[in-house]
Protein backbone atom coordinates (compact mmCIF):
# COMPACT_ATOMS: atom_id res chain seq x y z
CA UNK A 1 0.00 0.00 0.00
CA UNK A 2 2.78 2.41 0.93
CA UNK A 3 4.63 1.30 -2.18
CA UNK A 4 1.62 2.14 -4.31
CA UNK A 5 1.37 5.54 -2.66
CA UNK A 6 5.03 6.29 -3.25
CA UNK A 7 4.81 5.19 -6.91
CA UNK A 8 1.78 7.39 -7.33
CA UNK A 9 3.59 10.26 -5.68
CA UNK A 10 6.61 9.91 -7.95
CA UNK A 11 4.35 9.84 -11.03
CA UNK A 12 2.62 13.01 -9.85
CA UNK A 13 5.92 14.74 -9.15
CA UNK A 14 7.11 13.71 -12.65
CA UNK A 15 3.97 15.07 -14.33
CA UNK A 16 3.95 18.34 -12.40
CA UNK A 17 7.64 19.05 -12.91
CA UNK A 18 9.53 21.70 -14.81
CA UNK A 19 10.92 19.03 -17.14
CA UNK A 20 7.38 17.98 -18.09
CA UNK A 21 6.49 21.60 -18.82
CA UNK A 22 9.59 21.92 -21.02
CA UNK A 23 8.53 18.82 -22.96
CA UNK A 24 5.00 20.22 -23.45
CA UNK A 25 6.45 23.53 -24.66
CA UNK A 26 8.68 21.53 -27.02
CA UNK A 27 5.61 19.81 -28.46
CA UNK A 28 3.85 23.18 -28.94
CA UNK A 29 6.94 24.42 -30.77
CA UNK A 30 6.94 21.34 -32.99
CA UNK A 31 3.31 21.99 -33.93
CA UNK A 32 4.20 25.60 -34.78
CA UNK A 33 7.14 24.27 -36.80
CA UNK A 34 4.90 21.83 -38.70
CA UNK A 35 2.48 24.64 -39.54
CA UNK A 36 5.44 26.73 -40.77
CA UNK A 37 6.60 23.90 -43.06
CA UNK A 38 3.06 23.69 -44.49
CA UNK A 39 2.79 27.46 -45.03
CA UNK A 40 3.17 27.23 -48.83
CA UNK A 41 2.96 30.97 -49.50
CA UNK A 42 6.00 31.71 -47.30
CA UNK A 43 9.18 31.39 -49.43
CA UNK A 44 11.30 30.84 -46.30
CA UNK A 45 9.01 28.22 -44.79
CA UNK A 46 11.68 25.48 -44.62
CA UNK A 47 14.23 27.53 -42.69
CA UNK A 48 11.55 29.07 -40.46
CA UNK A 49 10.14 25.62 -39.70
CA UNK A 50 13.62 24.24 -39.01
CA UNK A 51 14.34 27.05 -36.53
CA UNK A 52 11.28 26.25 -34.40
CA UNK A 53 11.84 22.49 -34.80
CA UNK A 54 15.32 22.80 -33.28
CA UNK A 55 14.11 25.07 -30.48
CA UNK A 56 11.41 22.49 -29.72
CA UNK A 57 14.03 19.74 -29.59
CA UNK A 58 16.19 21.75 -27.18
CA UNK A 59 13.13 22.40 -25.01
CA UNK A 60 12.13 18.75 -24.91
CA UNK A 61 15.52 17.06 -24.69
CA UNK A 62 18.14 19.39 -23.20
CA UNK A 63 19.60 18.47 -19.86
CA UNK A 64 18.26 20.58 -17.00
CA UNK A 65 19.76 21.55 -13.67
CA UNK A 66 17.29 19.52 -11.61
CA UNK A 67 18.89 16.62 -9.72
CA UNK A 68 16.52 14.06 -11.27
CA UNK A 69 16.84 15.58 -14.75
CA UNK A 70 15.88 13.38 -17.67
CA UNK A 71 17.35 15.28 -20.64
CA UNK A 72 19.43 13.36 -23.14
CA UNK A 73 20.99 16.18 -25.15
CA UNK A 74 24.59 16.84 -24.02
CA UNK A 75 25.55 20.49 -23.53
CA UNK A 76 27.99 20.59 -26.43
CA UNK A 77 25.29 19.39 -28.84
CA UNK A 78 22.79 21.95 -27.48
CA UNK A 79 25.49 24.58 -27.99
CA UNK A 80 26.03 23.55 -31.61
CA UNK A 81 22.27 23.50 -32.23
CA UNK A 82 22.05 27.04 -30.81
CA UNK A 83 24.80 28.15 -33.20
CA UNK A 84 22.86 26.56 -36.08
CA UNK A 85 19.67 28.41 -35.05
CA UNK A 86 21.55 31.69 -34.90
CA UNK A 87 22.99 30.97 -38.36
CA UNK A 88 19.46 30.46 -39.70
CA UNK A 89 18.31 33.74 -38.18
CA UNK A 90 21.53 35.53 -39.13
CA UNK A 91 20.91 34.77 -42.81
CA UNK A 92 17.34 36.05 -42.59
CA UNK A 93 15.78 32.59 -42.52
CA UNK A 94 13.17 33.22 -39.82
CA UNK A 95 10.20 35.06 -41.28
CA UNK A 96 6.52 35.68 -40.77
CA UNK A 97 3.99 33.58 -42.65
CA UNK A 98 0.28 33.57 -43.43
CA UNK A 99 -2.30 32.69 -40.83
CA UNK A 100 -5.78 33.25 -42.28
CA UNK A 101 -6.27 36.10 -39.83
CA UNK A 102 -9.65 37.40 -38.72
CA UNK A 103 -10.84 40.91 -39.57
CA UNK A 104 -11.68 43.59 -37.03
CA UNK A 105 -15.39 43.25 -37.94
CA UNK A 106 -15.33 39.51 -37.22
CA UNK A 107 -13.64 40.16 -33.89
CA UNK A 108 -16.31 42.69 -32.91
CA UNK A 109 -19.12 40.29 -33.85
CA UNK A 110 -17.50 37.50 -31.82
CA UNK A 111 -16.93 39.88 -28.90
CA UNK A 112 -20.67 40.73 -28.82
CA UNK A 113 -21.61 37.06 -28.95
CA UNK A 114 -19.17 35.73 -26.34
CA UNK A 115 -19.14 38.78 -24.04
CA UNK A 116 -17.11 38.51 -20.84
CA UNK A 117 -16.59 34.76 -21.27
CA UNK A 118 -13.60 35.48 -23.54
CA UNK A 119 -11.65 36.58 -20.44
CA UNK A 120 -11.82 33.07 -18.95
CA UNK A 121 -8.93 31.50 -20.89
CA UNK A 122 -6.68 34.50 -20.30
CA UNK A 123 -7.49 34.60 -16.58
CA UNK A 124 -6.85 30.87 -16.37
CA UNK A 125 -3.12 31.49 -16.92
CA UNK A 126 -2.43 33.66 -13.84
CA UNK A 127 -4.97 31.78 -11.69
CA UNK A 128 -3.36 28.38 -12.36
CA UNK A 129 0.08 29.94 -11.90
CA UNK A 130 -0.94 31.27 -8.46
CA UNK A 131 -2.55 27.96 -7.47
CA UNK A 132 0.59 26.02 -8.35
CA UNK A 133 2.77 28.49 -6.46
CA UNK A 134 0.53 28.13 -3.40
CA UNK A 135 0.44 24.34 -3.70
CA UNK A 136 4.23 24.19 -3.95
CA UNK A 137 4.52 26.39 -0.86
CA UNK A 138 2.14 24.17 1.13
CA UNK A 139 4.16 21.12 0.07
CA UNK A 140 7.32 23.02 1.11
CA UNK A 141 8.75 22.93 -2.41
CA UNK A 142 10.43 25.75 -4.35
CA UNK A 143 7.74 28.41 -4.91
CA UNK A 144 9.43 29.93 -7.97
CA UNK A 145 9.61 26.53 -9.62
CA UNK A 146 5.93 26.09 -8.74
CA UNK A 147 5.06 29.34 -10.51
CA UNK A 148 6.92 28.18 -13.64
CA UNK A 149 5.24 24.77 -13.64
CA UNK A 150 1.97 26.62 -13.06
CA UNK A 151 2.63 28.86 -16.05
CA UNK A 152 3.02 25.76 -18.21
CA UNK A 153 -0.13 24.06 -16.99
CA UNK A 154 -1.92 27.42 -16.98
CA UNK A 155 -1.15 27.64 -20.70
CA UNK A 156 -2.66 24.17 -21.22
CA UNK A 157 -5.78 25.05 -19.18
CA UNK A 158 -6.14 28.27 -21.15
CA UNK A 159 -5.98 26.34 -24.44
CA UNK A 160 -8.65 23.90 -23.30
CA UNK A 161 -10.90 26.68 -21.96
CA UNK A 162 -10.49 28.72 -25.12
CA UNK A 163 -11.37 25.80 -27.41
CA UNK A 164 -14.39 25.02 -25.23
CA UNK A 165 -15.70 28.61 -25.29
CA UNK A 166 -15.07 29.37 -28.96
CA UNK A 167 -15.85 25.85 -30.29
CA UNK A 168 -13.13 26.48 -32.87
CA UNK A 169 -10.63 23.92 -34.18
CA UNK A 170 -7.31 23.00 -32.57
CA UNK A 171 -5.49 23.94 -35.76
CA UNK A 172 -7.00 27.44 -35.81
CA UNK A 173 -5.75 27.95 -32.26
CA UNK A 174 -2.25 26.80 -33.16
CA UNK A 175 -2.25 29.08 -36.22
CA UNK A 176 -3.16 31.98 -33.94
CA UNK A 177 -0.34 30.94 -31.59
CA UNK A 178 2.02 30.89 -34.57
CA UNK A 179 0.84 34.38 -35.56
CA UNK A 180 1.91 35.75 -32.16
CA UNK A 181 5.09 33.68 -32.02
CA UNK A 182 6.23 34.71 -35.51
CA UNK A 183 5.53 38.37 -34.68
CA UNK A 184 8.41 38.06 -32.22
CA UNK A 185 10.49 35.69 -34.31
CA UNK A 186 14.04 35.01 -33.20
CA UNK A 187 13.76 37.74 -30.51
CA UNK A 188 12.15 34.91 -28.52
CA UNK A 189 15.47 33.20 -27.87
CA UNK A 190 17.39 36.42 -27.16
CA UNK A 191 17.02 36.23 -23.35
CA UNK A 192 18.46 32.72 -23.38
CA UNK A 193 21.35 33.80 -25.63
CA UNK A 194 22.10 36.80 -23.41
CA UNK A 195 22.13 34.59 -20.32
CA UNK A 196 24.72 32.44 -22.11
CA UNK A 197 26.75 35.54 -22.95
CA UNK A 198 26.68 36.45 -19.25
CA UNK A 199 28.06 33.03 -18.34
CA UNK A 200 30.91 33.40 -20.86
CA UNK A 201 31.66 36.94 -19.60
CA UNK A 202 31.87 35.56 -16.07
CA UNK A 203 34.16 32.71 -17.14
CA UNK A 204 36.39 35.20 -18.98
CA UNK A 205 36.47 37.30 -15.76
CA UNK A 206 35.19 40.43 -17.52
CA UNK A 207 33.50 41.40 -14.24
CA UNK A 208 36.70 41.41 -12.20
CA UNK A 209 38.20 43.64 -14.86
CA UNK A 210 35.44 46.24 -14.49
CA UNK A 211 35.54 46.10 -10.69
CA UNK A 212 39.33 46.42 -10.80
CA UNK A 213 39.02 49.47 -13.04
CA UNK A 214 36.63 51.17 -10.60
CA UNK A 215 38.90 50.25 -7.70
CA UNK A 216 41.81 52.08 -9.36
CA UNK A 217 39.98 55.25 -10.39
CA UNK A 218 38.19 56.32 -7.24
CA UNK A 219 39.76 58.05 -4.21
CA UNK A 220 39.27 55.87 -1.14
CA UNK A 221 38.52 58.66 1.34
CA UNK A 222 35.61 60.56 -0.21
CA UNK A 223 32.38 58.86 0.85
CA UNK A 224 30.15 60.55 -1.71
CA UNK A 225 32.44 59.64 -4.61
CA UNK A 226 32.65 56.07 -3.31
CA UNK A 227 28.86 55.80 -3.14
CA UNK A 228 28.65 57.30 -6.63
CA UNK A 229 31.23 54.83 -7.97
CA UNK A 230 29.46 51.93 -6.26
CA UNK A 231 26.06 52.77 -7.79
CA UNK A 232 27.58 53.69 -11.15
CA UNK A 233 29.60 50.48 -11.28
CA UNK A 234 26.50 48.47 -10.41
CA UNK A 235 24.41 50.18 -13.11
CA UNK A 236 27.15 50.00 -15.78
CA UNK A 237 27.84 46.36 -15.05
CA UNK A 238 24.12 45.58 -15.23
CA UNK A 239 23.84 47.44 -18.54
CA UNK A 240 26.65 45.27 -19.95
CA UNK A 241 25.47 41.96 -18.49
CA UNK A 242 21.74 42.73 -18.74
CA UNK A 243 21.22 41.30 -15.29
CA UNK A 244 21.61 42.96 -11.90
CA UNK A 245 21.85 39.56 -10.22
CA UNK A 246 25.06 38.83 -12.15
CA UNK A 247 26.45 42.25 -11.30
CA UNK A 248 25.74 42.28 -7.56
CA UNK A 249 28.28 39.68 -6.37
CA UNK A 250 31.04 41.38 -8.38
CA UNK A 251 30.31 44.91 -7.14
CA UNK A 252 29.61 43.78 -3.56
CA UNK A 253 32.92 41.91 -3.40
CA UNK A 254 34.99 44.42 -5.36
CA UNK A 255 33.64 47.79 -4.22
CA UNK A 256 30.87 47.78 -1.62
CA UNK A 257 32.45 45.61 1.07
CA UNK A 258 36.13 46.70 0.92
CA UNK A 259 35.61 50.41 0.14
CA UNK A 260 32.36 51.38 1.88
CA UNK A 261 31.16 48.89 4.51
CA UNK A 262 34.55 48.12 6.09
CA UNK A 263 36.30 51.50 6.26
CA UNK A 264 33.19 53.50 7.18
CA UNK A 265 31.60 50.90 9.47
CA UNK A 266 28.29 51.00 7.64
CA UNK A 267 25.37 48.62 8.35
CA UNK A 268 25.75 46.09 5.52
CA UNK A 269 22.02 45.35 4.98
CA UNK A 270 21.30 49.06 4.52
CA UNK A 271 23.68 49.62 1.60
CA UNK A 272 23.50 46.12 0.11
CA UNK A 273 19.88 46.19 -0.97
CA UNK A 274 20.19 49.76 -2.32
CA UNK A 275 23.17 48.62 -4.38
CA UNK A 276 21.06 45.84 -5.87
CA UNK A 277 18.23 48.16 -6.91
CA UNK A 278 20.73 50.67 -8.33
CA UNK A 279 21.40 47.80 -10.71
CA UNK A 280 17.69 47.44 -11.43
CA UNK A 281 17.75 51.01 -12.73
CA UNK A 282 20.45 49.82 -15.13
CA UNK A 283 18.25 46.92 -16.20
CA UNK A 284 15.59 49.42 -17.30
CA UNK A 285 18.11 51.08 -19.64
CA UNK A 286 19.70 48.16 -21.45
CA UNK A 287 18.78 46.11 -24.52
CA UNK A 288 20.85 43.33 -22.94
CA UNK A 289 17.91 42.73 -20.57
CA UNK A 290 15.98 41.49 -23.59
CA UNK A 291 13.30 39.63 -21.66
CA UNK A 292 12.21 42.87 -19.96
CA UNK A 293 12.84 45.42 -22.70
CA UNK A 294 13.10 43.88 -26.17
CA UNK A 295 10.74 40.87 -26.01
CA UNK A 296 7.84 43.04 -24.71
CA UNK A 297 8.41 45.52 -27.56
CA UNK A 298 8.15 42.60 -29.99
CA UNK A 299 5.20 41.11 -28.12
CA UNK A 300 3.31 44.40 -28.51
CA UNK A 301 4.38 44.81 -32.18
CA UNK A 302 6.13 48.10 -31.49
CA UNK A 303 7.70 49.85 -34.46
CA UNK A 304 10.84 50.74 -32.49
CA UNK A 305 12.45 47.75 -30.78
CA UNK A 306 14.04 50.20 -28.30
CA UNK A 307 10.70 51.96 -27.62
CA UNK A 308 10.32 50.49 -24.12
CA UNK A 309 13.86 51.51 -23.15
CA UNK A 310 13.33 55.06 -24.43
CA UNK A 311 10.20 55.41 -22.30
CA UNK A 312 11.98 54.02 -19.21
CA UNK A 313 15.17 56.07 -19.63
CA UNK A 314 14.17 59.32 -17.83
CA UNK A 315 12.57 57.31 -15.01
CA UNK A 316 15.62 55.05 -14.65
CA UNK A 317 18.11 57.95 -14.63
CA UNK A 318 16.09 59.87 -12.01
CA UNK A 319 15.64 56.81 -9.82
CA UNK A 320 19.32 55.91 -10.12
CA UNK A 321 20.35 59.41 -8.98
CA UNK A 322 18.00 59.09 -6.02
CA UNK A 323 19.76 55.82 -5.12
CA UNK A 324 23.08 57.67 -4.85
CA UNK A 325 21.59 60.45 -2.72
CA UNK A 326 19.60 58.04 -0.51
CA UNK A 327 22.58 55.77 0.14
CA UNK A 328 24.85 58.70 0.98
CA UNK A 329 22.24 60.28 3.26
CA UNK A 330 21.53 57.01 5.06
CA UNK A 331 25.23 56.43 5.75
CA UNK A 332 25.56 60.02 7.01
CA UNK A 333 22.44 59.92 9.20
CA UNK A 334 22.63 56.41 10.67
Amino acid at each position, binding site marked *: MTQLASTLLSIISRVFSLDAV*YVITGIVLWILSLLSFRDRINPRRVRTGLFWLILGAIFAFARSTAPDATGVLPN*WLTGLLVLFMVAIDGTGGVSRGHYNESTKEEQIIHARRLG*GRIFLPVLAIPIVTFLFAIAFRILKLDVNRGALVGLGFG*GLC*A*MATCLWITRDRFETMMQEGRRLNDAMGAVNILPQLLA*SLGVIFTAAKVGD*LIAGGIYKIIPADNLFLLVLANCLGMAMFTIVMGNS*FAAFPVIATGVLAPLIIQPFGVRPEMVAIITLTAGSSGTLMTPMAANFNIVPAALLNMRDQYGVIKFQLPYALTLWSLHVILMWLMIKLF
Partner: protein
Amino acid sequence: MHPADLFKLIGIAIVIVGLALRLRTTLVVVTAGLVTGLAAGLPLFSGDRVFEALPFLTKPGQEGIINMLGKAFADNRLMTLFIITLPAIGLAERYGLQEQSASLIRRFAAATVGRLQIVYQLFRVLTGIVGIRLNGHPSFVRPLIFPMSVGAAEGVLHASSAEELPTDMVEEIKAANAASENYGNFYGQNLSAVQPGILLVFGVMAGLGYAVSVWSLVMFAIPIATISVVLAAVQFWLLDRNFQKSAATTR
Protein backbone atom coordinates in the same frame (compact mmCIF):
# COMPACT_ATOMS: atom_id res chain seq x y z
CA MET B 1 45.94 46.59 -16.42
CA HIS B 2 47.36 43.84 -18.61
CA PRO B 3 46.97 44.38 -22.40
CA ALA B 4 45.64 40.82 -22.75
CA ASP B 5 42.96 41.74 -20.22
CA LEU B 6 41.82 44.67 -22.33
CA PHE B 7 41.40 42.30 -25.25
CA LYS B 8 38.65 40.52 -23.29
CA LEU B 9 36.57 43.69 -23.42
CA ILE B 10 36.28 43.30 -27.19
CA GLY B 11 33.05 41.37 -26.63
CA ILE B 12 31.45 44.41 -25.00
CA ALA B 13 32.63 46.54 -27.95
CA ILE B 14 31.07 44.07 -30.39
CA VAL B 15 27.75 44.25 -28.55
CA ILE B 16 27.70 48.06 -28.43
CA VAL B 17 28.67 48.51 -32.08
CA GLY B 18 26.42 45.68 -33.28
CA LEU B 19 23.35 46.96 -31.44
CA ALA B 20 24.05 50.57 -32.47
CA LEU B 21 24.20 49.50 -36.14
CA ARG B 22 21.02 47.45 -35.57
CA LEU B 23 22.63 44.29 -36.91
CA ARG B 24 20.79 41.05 -36.22
CA THR B 25 20.86 40.84 -32.42
CA THR B 26 21.14 37.06 -32.10
CA LEU B 27 24.21 37.03 -34.32
CA VAL B 28 25.83 39.97 -32.47
CA VAL B 29 25.34 38.35 -29.06
CA VAL B 30 26.70 34.94 -30.06
CA THR B 31 29.69 36.49 -31.86
CA ALA B 32 30.48 38.57 -28.78
CA GLY B 33 30.33 35.45 -26.63
CA LEU B 34 32.60 33.39 -28.87
CA VAL B 35 35.14 36.21 -29.31
CA THR B 36 35.25 37.01 -25.57
CA GLY B 37 35.74 33.35 -24.72
CA LEU B 38 38.51 32.89 -27.26
CA ALA B 39 40.18 36.16 -26.20
CA ALA B 40 40.23 34.86 -22.63
CA GLY B 41 41.93 31.70 -23.88
CA LEU B 42 38.99 29.38 -23.23
CA PRO B 43 38.73 26.25 -25.40
CA LEU B 44 35.80 25.72 -27.78
CA PHE B 45 34.82 22.36 -26.27
CA SER B 46 35.27 20.64 -22.92
CA GLY B 47 37.86 17.90 -23.13
CA ASP B 48 35.65 14.95 -22.24
CA ARG B 49 34.21 12.10 -24.33
CA VAL B 50 33.86 12.96 -28.03
CA PHE B 51 36.38 15.77 -28.09
CA GLU B 52 39.13 14.06 -26.15
CA ALA B 53 41.09 13.40 -29.31
CA LEU B 54 40.93 16.97 -30.61
CA PRO B 55 43.87 18.86 -29.07
CA PHE B 56 43.32 22.24 -30.72
CA LEU B 57 39.67 22.57 -29.69
CA THR B 58 40.05 21.55 -26.07
CA LYS B 59 42.21 22.27 -23.03
CA PRO B 60 42.55 19.83 -20.15
CA GLY B 61 40.32 20.65 -17.20
CA GLN B 62 38.60 23.66 -18.78
CA GLU B 63 34.95 23.98 -19.75
CA GLY B 64 34.45 24.77 -23.43
CA ILE B 65 32.67 27.86 -24.78
CA ILE B 66 30.17 25.77 -26.77
CA ASN B 67 29.43 23.66 -23.69
CA MET B 68 28.81 26.81 -21.63
CA LEU B 69 26.57 28.17 -24.36
CA GLY B 70 24.52 24.98 -24.49
CA LYS B 71 24.26 24.62 -20.73
CA ALA B 72 23.24 28.25 -20.13
CA PHE B 73 20.75 28.11 -23.00
CA ALA B 74 19.17 24.97 -21.55
CA ASP B 75 19.20 26.28 -17.97
CA ASN B 76 17.40 29.45 -19.05
CA ARG B 77 14.56 27.82 -20.98
CA LEU B 78 12.25 29.20 -18.29
CA MET B 79 12.70 32.65 -19.89
CA THR B 80 11.02 31.41 -23.07
CA LEU B 81 8.32 29.35 -21.38
CA PHE B 82 5.72 32.00 -22.22
CA ILE B 83 5.42 30.49 -25.74
CA ILE B 84 3.04 27.94 -24.21
CA THR B 85 0.53 30.71 -23.46
CA LEU B 86 0.48 32.10 -27.02
CA PRO B 87 -2.04 29.72 -28.70
CA ALA B 88 -4.76 30.46 -26.13
CA ILE B 89 -4.11 34.21 -26.18
CA GLY B 90 -4.04 34.21 -29.99
CA LEU B 91 -7.35 32.39 -30.29
CA ALA B 92 -8.93 34.62 -27.64
CA GLU B 93 -7.78 37.64 -29.64
CA ARG B 94 -9.41 36.18 -32.75
CA TYR B 95 -12.64 36.03 -30.77
CA GLY B 96 -12.52 39.66 -29.69
CA LEU B 97 -10.45 39.67 -26.48
CA GLN B 98 -8.92 43.07 -27.18
CA GLU B 99 -12.27 44.53 -28.21
CA GLN B 100 -13.88 43.19 -25.02
CA SER B 101 -11.07 44.50 -22.77
CA ALA B 102 -11.40 47.95 -24.32
CA SER B 103 -15.17 48.06 -23.93
CA LEU B 104 -14.86 46.91 -20.31
CA ILE B 105 -12.59 49.82 -19.42
CA ARG B 106 -14.72 52.34 -21.37
CA ARG B 107 -17.45 51.80 -18.78
CA PHE B 108 -15.27 53.49 -16.16
CA ALA B 109 -15.40 57.22 -16.79
CA ALA B 110 -12.44 57.83 -14.45
CA ALA B 111 -10.16 55.46 -16.36
CA THR B 112 -7.21 57.07 -18.09
CA VAL B 113 -4.12 55.47 -19.59
CA GLY B 114 -1.88 56.80 -16.81
CA ARG B 115 -4.16 55.82 -13.95
CA LEU B 116 -4.47 52.31 -15.38
CA GLN B 117 -0.67 51.97 -15.40
CA ILE B 118 -0.47 53.16 -11.79
CA VAL B 119 -3.06 50.57 -10.73
CA TYR B 120 -1.30 47.82 -12.66
CA GLN B 121 2.08 48.72 -11.17
CA LEU B 122 0.59 48.60 -7.66
CA PHE B 123 -0.88 45.21 -8.47
CA ARG B 124 2.59 43.99 -9.50
CA VAL B 125 4.12 45.38 -6.30
CA LEU B 126 1.45 43.47 -4.40
CA THR B 127 2.25 40.19 -6.17
CA GLY B 128 5.88 40.89 -5.27
CA ILE B 129 5.03 41.33 -1.58
CA VAL B 130 3.04 38.08 -1.61
CA GLY B 131 6.19 36.45 -2.90
CA ILE B 132 5.05 35.35 -6.33
CA ARG B 133 7.33 35.82 -9.27
CA LEU B 134 5.73 35.99 -12.68
CA ASN B 135 6.44 37.33 -16.13
CA GLY B 136 3.55 39.73 -16.66
CA HIS B 137 4.41 40.77 -20.22
CA PRO B 138 2.77 37.80 -21.97
CA SER B 139 0.17 36.91 -19.33
CA PHE B 140 -1.17 40.38 -18.40
CA VAL B 141 0.27 43.19 -20.52
CA ARG B 142 -0.35 41.96 -24.05
CA PRO B 143 -3.79 40.31 -23.56
CA LEU B 144 -5.33 42.68 -20.97
CA ILE B 145 -3.46 45.85 -20.00
CA PHE B 146 -2.65 47.00 -23.54
CA PRO B 147 -6.22 46.71 -24.92
CA MET B 148 -7.59 48.24 -21.70
CA SER B 149 -5.20 51.17 -22.09
CA VAL B 150 -6.30 51.63 -25.69
CA GLY B 151 -9.91 51.59 -24.48
CA ALA B 152 -9.10 54.24 -21.87
CA ALA B 153 -7.37 56.40 -24.48
CA GLU B 154 -10.41 56.10 -26.76
CA GLY B 155 -12.55 57.35 -23.89
CA VAL B 156 -10.29 60.35 -23.25
CA LEU B 157 -10.06 61.26 -26.95
CA HIS B 158 -13.71 60.41 -27.71
CA ALA B 159 -12.49 58.10 -30.45
CA SER B 160 -14.77 55.25 -31.44
CA SER B 161 -12.03 52.75 -32.35
CA ALA B 162 -8.33 52.10 -31.86
CA GLU B 163 -7.70 52.97 -35.51
CA GLU B 164 -8.68 56.58 -34.81
CA LEU B 165 -5.88 57.01 -32.26
CA PRO B 166 -2.65 58.60 -33.54
CA THR B 167 0.04 55.94 -34.15
CA ASP B 168 2.57 57.75 -31.94
CA MET B 169 0.11 57.65 -29.08
CA VAL B 170 -0.47 53.90 -29.46
CA GLU B 171 3.29 53.34 -29.48
CA GLU B 172 3.65 55.37 -26.29
CA ILE B 173 0.82 53.40 -24.67
CA LYS B 174 2.63 50.15 -25.49
CA ALA B 175 5.88 51.44 -23.99
CA ALA B 176 4.05 52.61 -20.84
CA ASN B 177 2.40 49.18 -20.48
CA ALA B 178 5.73 47.35 -20.59
CA ALA B 179 7.30 49.95 -18.27
CA SER B 180 4.64 49.66 -15.55
CA GLU B 181 5.16 45.90 -15.53
CA ASN B 182 8.93 46.31 -15.19
CA TYR B 183 8.72 49.07 -12.53
CA GLY B 184 6.33 47.06 -10.36
CA ASN B 185 8.23 43.83 -10.85
CA PHE B 186 11.77 45.13 -10.22
CA TYR B 187 11.18 47.22 -7.12
CA GLY B 188 8.22 45.32 -5.67
CA GLN B 189 9.88 41.92 -5.52
CA ASN B 190 12.39 43.03 -2.89
CA LEU B 191 9.54 43.51 -0.42
CA SER B 192 9.36 39.76 0.12
CA ALA B 193 11.91 37.67 1.98
CA VAL B 194 11.40 34.67 -0.32
CA GLN B 195 12.14 36.51 -3.57
CA PRO B 196 15.40 35.78 -5.40
CA GLY B 197 16.76 39.34 -5.13
CA ILE B 198 16.71 39.34 -1.34
CA LEU B 199 18.03 35.77 -1.20
CA LEU B 200 20.89 36.69 -3.55
CA VAL B 201 21.93 39.69 -1.42
CA PHE B 202 21.61 37.56 1.72
CA GLY B 203 23.80 34.85 0.20
CA VAL B 204 26.49 37.18 -1.15
CA MET B 205 26.73 39.19 2.08
CA ALA B 206 26.95 35.96 4.10
CA GLY B 207 29.75 34.83 1.80
CA LEU B 208 31.59 38.09 2.55
CA GLY B 209 31.25 37.44 6.27
CA TYR B 210 28.30 39.73 7.05
CA ALA B 211 25.43 37.92 8.79
CA VAL B 212 22.46 40.06 7.72
CA SER B 213 18.85 39.01 8.22
CA VAL B 214 16.52 38.78 5.23
CA TRP B 215 13.92 40.84 7.10
CA SER B 216 16.28 43.76 7.64
CA LEU B 217 17.05 43.63 3.92
CA VAL B 218 13.32 43.82 3.17
CA MET B 219 13.01 46.76 5.57
CA PHE B 220 15.75 48.69 3.81
CA ALA B 221 14.11 47.94 0.43
CA ILE B 222 11.00 49.91 1.46
CA PRO B 223 12.33 53.46 0.80
CA ILE B 224 13.35 52.72 -2.81
CA ALA B 225 10.14 50.76 -3.47
CA THR B 226 8.12 53.75 -2.24
CA ILE B 227 10.11 56.20 -4.34
CA SER B 228 9.75 53.92 -7.39
CA VAL B 229 5.95 54.01 -7.11
CA VAL B 230 5.75 57.78 -6.58
CA LEU B 231 8.16 58.54 -9.43
CA ALA B 232 6.22 56.27 -11.78
CA ALA B 233 2.96 57.94 -10.78
CA VAL B 234 4.51 61.28 -11.80
CA GLN B 235 5.62 59.88 -15.17
CA PHE B 236 2.21 58.33 -15.87
CA TRP B 237 0.44 61.53 -14.78
CA LEU B 238 2.59 63.48 -17.25
CA LEU B 239 1.68 60.95 -19.93
CA ASP B 240 -2.03 61.54 -19.25
CA ARG B 241 -1.49 65.30 -19.46
CA ASN B 242 0.27 64.92 -22.83
CA PHE B 243 -2.59 62.82 -24.15
CA GLN B 244 -5.15 65.36 -22.97
CA LYS B 245 -3.19 68.14 -24.68
CA SER B 246 -3.07 66.26 -27.97
CA ALA B 247 -6.78 65.51 -27.58
CA ALA B 248 -7.44 69.25 -27.20
CA THR B 249 -5.44 70.13 -30.31
CA THR B 250 -6.96 67.46 -32.55
CA ARG B 251 -10.50 68.50 -31.66
